[in-house]
Every structure is written in structure tokens, then in C-alpha cells.
């Protein structure tokens, strides 16, 4: 597999504190890659820098062969990187239909002139967008809420809306910032299944998450950050038994982790 997103030597400091200290990693096309680490390890800073929501101090970000380093967020989105946010961001006073339509509208060719005259180009764009929205609404199981303001949905459902919106324009890569934090545990499994289904259909994901079980079940490759540095990376299984990761991230020794695994089984 080739690298779809390649991040090299990413650096970012807040008043002298290194939030990111020369972090490099790659996300393979068609993979689900996890980015984990304890609080303050720089995960969120990393994806904010990659997606253009924070200025980076140094390094290089390449998406599908295009250098997107330091570009404004909306241009990075247009290049094919869509993201969600840790504190869920949706348009709470618009319907689910409008939430999804807005997410896709920048990516079709229809201009306001097309819209005014209802040209074929406009009608095709709307039809395609609605088709895609219908697929995604079924995937996240919120069909009956389609015409309703998203503000009334539960927190977990809002996260699903944010996920669906990010998928609307068929992006090259979707970056999810804590997709299951605060979500009812019974729903986490549903999200897992949905992401796997999308991934099998060819979608690439980079996921920042605290929930280790979720990451382990889902990710092909996991990158571990600690205090702004890359601690290690590898397959989910390898990470789960890596002594350094357990100590840094879970505060456990391998023996304790093994005992916990036995307990869980």
C-alpha cells in the first residue's frame, strides 16, 4: 500500500513547550490508522496542524502527492481531507438534510448562476448529493431524523451526523477526532461496524481516540504519541503488548495488562 497522507518532521511549540517535536508518520491508502497517546501527548495538535486549523512551526504534510503544508483549512478540505472535531461540530439549527447538503456543496461544479437558472449542472449536483446523503443516513441509522433539526439529537447521534457530513464529498481521507468519546457504549459497536463497512468500500481513515479497545478492533496501523514525540508505531496487536506503550499510556506493566486481558476473556 502506498502512503496517502505523509507527515514528516511536524513541529509545534506553545510558548516554548514542545507540543509536537519532530513527529513523522504515514497513512496508507485504504487503511484505518489510529493515533493514540495520553492526554497532552499532541494528538489533537497534530491533526489540527495537518488540517490547517493551527499554524505549524515546521515540517511537511503531503496528501496524495500534493504539498498541503500550512495551507488554510478550507483549501486542505478541498484537496480531499475532511475532519471531525473532538467537541462535536454540526449545524444544530439546520436539518440533517441541510447539514449533509452543505458538507458537499463546495465539491460540485454548480455555481450560483447554475442554481438561479436551475441548470442541468445544478440539478445533477443536487441529485448526486441527495443520493449520497441517503446512503449515509441509512448507514448511520438516522433516516427518520432526516428532515429534523439536528440540535434535538443525542450526543452520540450528533457524532454520527458529523461523521456522515465528513463523508459526504467522497474525501480521500477522513480524520476523526475522538469519534466515540462520550458515546453510549452500546452504540460504539455500531460505529465500529459502520467504519469497517466504509473502509471496505475504499475509504481511508485516520482516527484519534482514547478508547483502546475501539482502536484495537478497528485499526490496521497504530501510531503512539507521548509528550509530543512518536513513541512507537505498529499493528494494533503489537502495540497492545508493547511495554513502553502500556507504561506511558495505560500506566500498566505487561503483566498487569495480561491479567486484565485474561479477566476480560
Amino acid at each position, binding site marked *: 500500500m502506498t502512503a496517502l497522507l505523509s507527515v514528516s518532521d511536524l513541529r509545534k511549540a506553545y510558548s516554548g513547550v514542545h507540543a509536537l517535536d519532530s513527529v513523522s508518520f504515514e497513512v496508507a491508502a485504504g487503511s484505518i490508522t489510529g493515533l493514540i497517546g495520553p492526554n497532552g501527548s499532541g494528538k489533537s495538535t497534530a491533526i489540527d496542524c495537518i*488540517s490547517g486549523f493551527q499554524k505549524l512551526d515546521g515540517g511537511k504534510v503531503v496528501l496524495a502527492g500534493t504539498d498541503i503544508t500550512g495551507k488554510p483549512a478550507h483549501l486542505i478540505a478541498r484537496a480531499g481531507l475532511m475532519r471531525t472535531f473532538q467537541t462535536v461540530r454540526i449545524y444544530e439549527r*439546520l436539518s440533517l438534510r441541510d447539514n449533509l*447538503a452543505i458538507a458537499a456543496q463546495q465539491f460540485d461544479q454548480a455555481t450560483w448562476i447554475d442554481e438561479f437558472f436551475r441548470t442541468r449542472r445544478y440539478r445533477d449536483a443536487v441529485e448526486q448529493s441527495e443520493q449520497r446523503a441517503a446512503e449515509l443516513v441509512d448507514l448511520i441509522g438516522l433516516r427518520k431524523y432526516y428532515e429534523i433539526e439536528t440540535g434535538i439529537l443525542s450526543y452520540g447521534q450528533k457524532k454520527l451526523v458529523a461523521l456522515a457530513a465528513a463523508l459526504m464529498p467522497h474525501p480521500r481521507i477522513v480524520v476523526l477526532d475522538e469519534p466515540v468519546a462520550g458515546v453510549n457504549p452500546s452504540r460504539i459497536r455500531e460505529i465500529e461496524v459502520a467504519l469497517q463497512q466504509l473502509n471496505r468500500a475504499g475509504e481511508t481513515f485516520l482516527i484519534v481516540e482514547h478508547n483502546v479497545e475501539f482502536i484495537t478492533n478497528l485499526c490496521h496501523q497504530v501510531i503512539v504519541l507521548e509528550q509530543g514525540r512518536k513513541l512507537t508505531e505498529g499493528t494494533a496487536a503489537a502495540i497492545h503488548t508493547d511495554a513502553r506503550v502500556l507504561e506511558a499510556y495505560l500506566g500498566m506493566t505487561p503483566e498487569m495488562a495480561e491479567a486484565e486481558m485474561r479477566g476480560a476473556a
Partner: protein
Amino acid sequence: MKLLLALLGALAFAALPLVTSSNYIIGVGISALIFTVAAAALNLVYGFTGLLSFAQLGFWGIGGYATTLTVMTFGGNFWLGVVYAALLNAALALVIGYPILRTNRHAFVISTLTFALLVALIARDWVTLTRGPLGIPNIPRPQAFGFAFETTPSFYWVAWAFSVATIGFLYALCSSRIGRTLIAIKQNEPLVRAQGISPMPYKLASFAIGAAITGAAGGVFAFHLRVIDPGFLDFYYMQTFLIIVIIGGAGSFWGVIAAGIALSALPEALRFSADFRMIIYGVILVAAMFVMPTGVAGWLRERKIARMRQALQ
């Protein structure tokens, strides 16, 4: 449905001079039409885009003076004057909007307020152009194809045509994808950016279009009053526009139009007590905000959402 109602409403309004011969009532009708346009323009800027702009008052005043001066000083006609007023305001809005839209919400509000105060100051102190506090009296009625809109009822048609055209344009804008994008920017700007949309051109366009329409409305209003002086920049006008938008429901297109028509009669009704007008206004506003914090349209909308929520359970 809403459009049909709006069309019927517009036609009913066109008939006003046919049912009354009172120049006073027709005059109130003219004010109602023009204030509604100015309020609809503020609704675009504030209600849709989320930019609380007090600069509207300045644009209103510039529009009034620009149209008047076009006729009285520069030998143009009323129609050209209104177009100049709109273009001048749009250009000004782009120039001041470009820097101040980059500041935060509070700084933006203060900057627009300062702009309005500055325009009032210029109207008073640039005596060679505006005649200062003396004002410019005897503004002639407009003419077209040899016909002079000399009487109040005939000028009413001018105001009516102007309102229908601008409100129609604003409706087309607000109900399009552009309008939807403006609402999205107001609700969640970072998300808009994450979806590939740069908010700045939208905000700037909204601010400039709002300025142009407010200015044109000011121009028509000056020709209704037939006199313009620095009182044209009284804060009372800004207050009226804002009250219409807030009570109608910021961000609700037809709510604001309906409130504009209904509330424009109010200042006329309150005219009996010039001293207490502002206080009465304030009391009405605060009372309305207690009962319906999101305006009439917001209040109706909440009822609708509650029904939908119930239907789902």
C-alpha cells in the same frame, strides 16, 4: 405557500392608495415599506450571517445624502441617485469590511458603531457639501418618462416597486445555497472551513449587499421626507431596524418582513409622545424578549420542533 402569501400581501399593499385618500396613512405606508427593506437588509447581515452591524445606520445616511446630492448638487436624477447610493455603499462596505471582518465579534460591533457615528459627524460638519445642520430642503419628487411622482400616492408606487424588487432579490439570495451557507457560517464557522468553504468572501458579500440595499432604502426615504439633515442619522432609525429584526426573528426571512410591516406603524403611533418614545420602545423590546427570546418566527419554530419531537416518540 409562503411565496403565494407574500405575493398576495404585496398586491394588497399595492392597493393601499386605492382604499384611502389620507396622505398621512399613505405616508406611514411608505415608511413601512422602506423600513421593512432596511430591516430585511439588516436581517441578511445580522440574522443570516451573524454580524451585528450598526454600520447600517451610516449606510442609510450615506444613501440618503448621496441620492439627494446627486439630484440637488450634481444635476442627476433620482433613479441614478439611488443606484449611486447603492454602489457607493457597497464599495465602502468592502473597504471597511475587509479589515473589520477579520477582528472578533465585539471589535466588529464597536467598529461598525464608530462608523455610524463618524458618518453622522460628517453629515453635520462637512457644511460645504451637506449644508450641515441646516439640511437640504425642497427635494423634488422623482420623474420618469415625463411623469412626475408628485403626489404622495404616486410616490407610494415608487416605494412599493422598490420594496418588492429588493425584497424579491433578498429572498432569492437568502433561500439559495448562498443563504444556507451564510446560516452555516453563523452557526459554526470552523465547521464551514472544514467543509472547504472560505467564510470571508461570503461575509464580505453579505455585508456589502446589506449596505447597498440599506443605502438605496435611505435614498428613497429622503425623497419621501423631501428634506435631509443630520437628523437622518438619528440612532432611532437603527433601533427601529434592529427591533424589527429581533421581534420578527433574526434569520427568519418572512418573520422579519411581517414584523417590518407591523412595527413600522408603531413609531407613528408613538409619535404623540416624542419624549417617551424611546422609553416605550425599550419597554416593548424587553417585554418581547422575555416572552419570545428568538422572535415571533423563532417562537413558532420552537413549537414546530416540539411537535416533531413528540411525533418521534
